[in-house]
C-alpha cells in the first residue's frame, strides 16, 4: 500500500518534473541550509553599538512597551519594585530559575516577594531574562529551557524583561548566529519567542487595543552599556 506521504511526494515531483535524486538540486538545497545566506539587511540595523542601543530604545517604545536603562544589573530589583509601586501592584513577581536572575541582589528589596517557576495564570507580574534584543524592530528574544519557562512570557498581566545592552544586536540574523554557536547548527530550543510590544487586538472595528490575551504591559529593563 502506498502511504499518503508517498502520494504527496510523488505528486510534487511529477508537477515539478523531477525524480528527487538529481544531484544538482540536492546540492543546491544542502548549500542553502549550510550557508544560510542573509539576503537584504536594512541599513538602519547596521549602526555602531551606541546607535544600536538608541535605536533599540526608540523601537521598543514605538511598539508601545516601556523601557528603563539601568547602569548595571544590581539596579534591577529596585527598578522592579519601583515599576510595581508606580502601578499600585502587589510587590510580588514570578521568575525562572535562570542564574542571571538568581544572582541579582534581591536582598536590597526586602519587601519584594520573588517566586520561582512557570506561570499558572494567577500571577500579575512575571520576570524573564532575554537572550537578546533586536534594534531593527525593538524585539526581545526569549529562549525556553529548564530555567526559562515560556509561560512567563505570555500569562502574567505585566511582563518584565531584563536585556543586557551587550546582547542587543542590529538584526535577527545576528541572533540566529549566536544561537547556532550555542546549540549547534540546525538546532533550536523548544520555543523561541520574539516579542515586540505588549499583546494587542484590532478585531473589533479595527480599534487597536492593548492586552488581548498576552501581557497588557511589556517593560524592558535594559542593563549596562553595549
Amino acid at each position: 500500500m502506498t502511504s499518503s506521504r508517498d502520494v504527496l511526494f510523488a505528486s510534487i515531483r511529477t508537477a515539478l518534473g523531477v525524480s528527487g535524486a538529481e544531484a544538482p538540486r540536492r546540492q543546491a538545497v544542502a548549500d542553502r541550509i549550510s550557508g544560510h545566506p542573509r539576503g537584504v539587511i536594512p541599513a538602519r540595523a547596521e549602526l555602531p553599538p551606541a546607535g544600536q542601543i538608541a535605536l533599540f530604545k526608540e523601537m521598543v517604545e514605538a511598539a508601545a512597551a516601556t523601557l528603563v536603562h539601568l547602569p548595571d544589573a544590581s539596579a534591577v530589583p529596585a527598578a522592579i519594585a519601583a515599576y510595581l509601586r508606580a502601578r499600585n501592584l502587589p510587590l510580588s513577581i514570578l521568575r525562572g530559575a535562570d542564574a542571571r536572575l538568581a544572582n541579582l541582589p534581591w536582598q536590597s528589596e526586602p519587601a519584594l516577594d520573588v517566586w520561582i517557576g512557570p506561570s499558572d495564570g494567577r500571577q500579575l507580574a512575571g520576570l524573564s531574562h532575554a537572550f537578546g534584543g533586536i534594534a531593527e524592530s525593538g524585539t526581545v528574544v526569549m529562549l525556553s529551557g529548564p530555567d526559562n519557562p515560556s509561560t512567563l512570557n505570555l500569562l502574567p498581566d505585566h511582563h518584565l524583561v531584563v536585556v543586557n545592552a551587550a546582547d542587543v544586536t542590529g538584526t535577527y540574523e545576528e541572533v540566529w548566529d549566536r544561537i547556532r554557536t550555542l546549540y549547534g547548527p540546525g538546532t533550536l530550543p523548544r520555543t523561541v519567542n520574539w516579542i515586540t510590544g505588549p499583546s494587542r487586538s484590532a478585531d473589533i472595528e479595527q480599534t487597536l487595543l492593548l492586552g488581548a490575551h498576552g501581557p497588557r504591559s511589556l517593560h524592558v529593563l535594559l542593563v549596562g552599556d553595549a
Partner: protein
Amino acid sequence: MSVHITSPQFKQNAREALADQPLQKALAKVGPGFIGKRAAAAEKLPEFEALRDSARDIKNHTLAHLDLYMERFEEKARAAGGHVHFAVDAAEARNIILGICRDLGAKTVTKGKSMISEEIGLNDHLEANGIQPVETDLGEYLIQIRGEGPSHIIAPAIHLNKEQVEADFRRVHADLPPERNLSEPTALLAEARGKLREKFLAADVGITGANFLVAETGTSIIVTNEGNGDLTQTLPKAHIVLASIEKLVPTLEDVSQLLRVLARSATGQEMSVYTTFSTGPRRAEDPDGPGDYHVVILDNGRSGMLAGQLREMLRCIRCGACMNHCPVYHAVGGHAYGWVYPGPMGSVLTPSLIGVEKGRNLPNASTFCGRCEEVCPVRIPLPKLMRHWREKEFERHLMPATQRTGLAVWSFLARRGWLYRPMTRMAMAMLALVGKSKGRFSKLPLAGGWTQYRDFPAPEGDTFQAQWAARKNVR
C-alpha cells in the same frame, strides 16, 4: 463535513452585500485603515522594495525544491521529537487530527487562527465527534459564536460592528450580569480575555496553523498580535500544527526576510507582537510546554499548482494586502466570495482548490486595476493569474453563449487584419454617432452585464489602430 460553498452565486452574494447596511458601514473602514498603515511602514524602510524581491526569490527557490525541503523538515522535526503526518486531502487531515485528539482523550481543544482549518472544515468535524473546539483569536471567536466563516484572512470579523459583538456577548456569556456595560470595545475585549483565559487553561490539545515551516531546523512558526496562538500551543498536553505544503522555507535567515515584509504588508507594523518558533515537544528538563508535538502537512490540491502558471500563487504568505487594496473587496466584503479565501488571492486560489466549475465567477470579480499586484509582498501577478482562469473558463465552455459567441467572432476577426480593421472602424463610427449626445450608453445590446451597473463610454469615433496609423504618418 466540509465548508458550505456559495462561490457559484457570487453575483447574488454581491448584490446582497451591497444592500447590507451594517456590512457597508464596517467595510467603509477597511481601505482607510489598512492602506495608509502599509504605505507608512513601506515608506519608513528604504529597503522594502528590495526585500519584496528577496521574498519572491526565496519562495520561488523553495517551491522549485519543495520535495527536498520537505524531506529535510520532516527529518529535523522528528529528530526534535515531533511527529510529522502527511494528508493528501481535507478528509485525511481532519481524521489525523481527530485521531490524535482521541488518543489523548481530549474533550476541549483551543485553536489559534488557521485558514487551513477553515478550508478543511475542522471545527465541524471535531464537534460532530464530541470534541469542543474553541477559537481563541478574538476575530475567530466572534465568528465562531455567530456560526459564520471568516470574511478576511487576517481580520476574520472585519464585517462586524461593535453593536453586533455586544449583542452576541450578551447572548453567549449569559452567566455574566445583564446590567454590565459593554458599549466600549475595551469592555468587550476584557470580557473575551476573561472568558478565553478559562478555556486556555482547561484545554487538552492546542491546534494552530503555521505561517512558516523551517526546513533547516524542523521548526513551525506562528505570528500573532494577541498572543492567543502562543498560549494555545504552550499550555495543553499536545500541540498540533496544521500547515499546507507551501509554508516551507529553507532557513532561519530566509524566514527573517519574509517576516520583514509580512507584518508591514498586513497591518503596517514593523513586526507583529509575537513570533513564536516551535521545535518539537517540551524537552526533558523544561518546566512547561506541550508534551507532544505534531505537524500535519496538507496538500489538498496544491501540488498540482506547481506544474504551471499557478505555481506563483503558492508564494502567498497570507498577509491580506491584496484584499485590503481591492475595490471589489471594499464593495462586497469577504463573504460574497463564497468560500474561505476572499479578495484577489481568493479569486485565484479558490478555483484552484475547489475546481473551476464552482470558483469560475471569482476571477471575474475584478476591475483589473492592478493594485493587488502593486502591494503583494511576494509579487504575485494576481491579475495575470485571474486572466489565466478566465481563459480556462472559456476553454472549458463554461461561459454563457453570448459571451462565447462574441469572443469567438472577435478572435476570428482579430486574426484577419484585412477584415478586422474595416469592421471595427465601421462599428466605432456607428457607436460614436449613436452615443454622441451623452458621450456614453446606459444600454447596449449584448452588453447588459456591463451596462446594468455602469455606463459604457461612447468611443471618440476612430479605432486605436486607425489613430495609431494616422499618428505614425504625422511623425
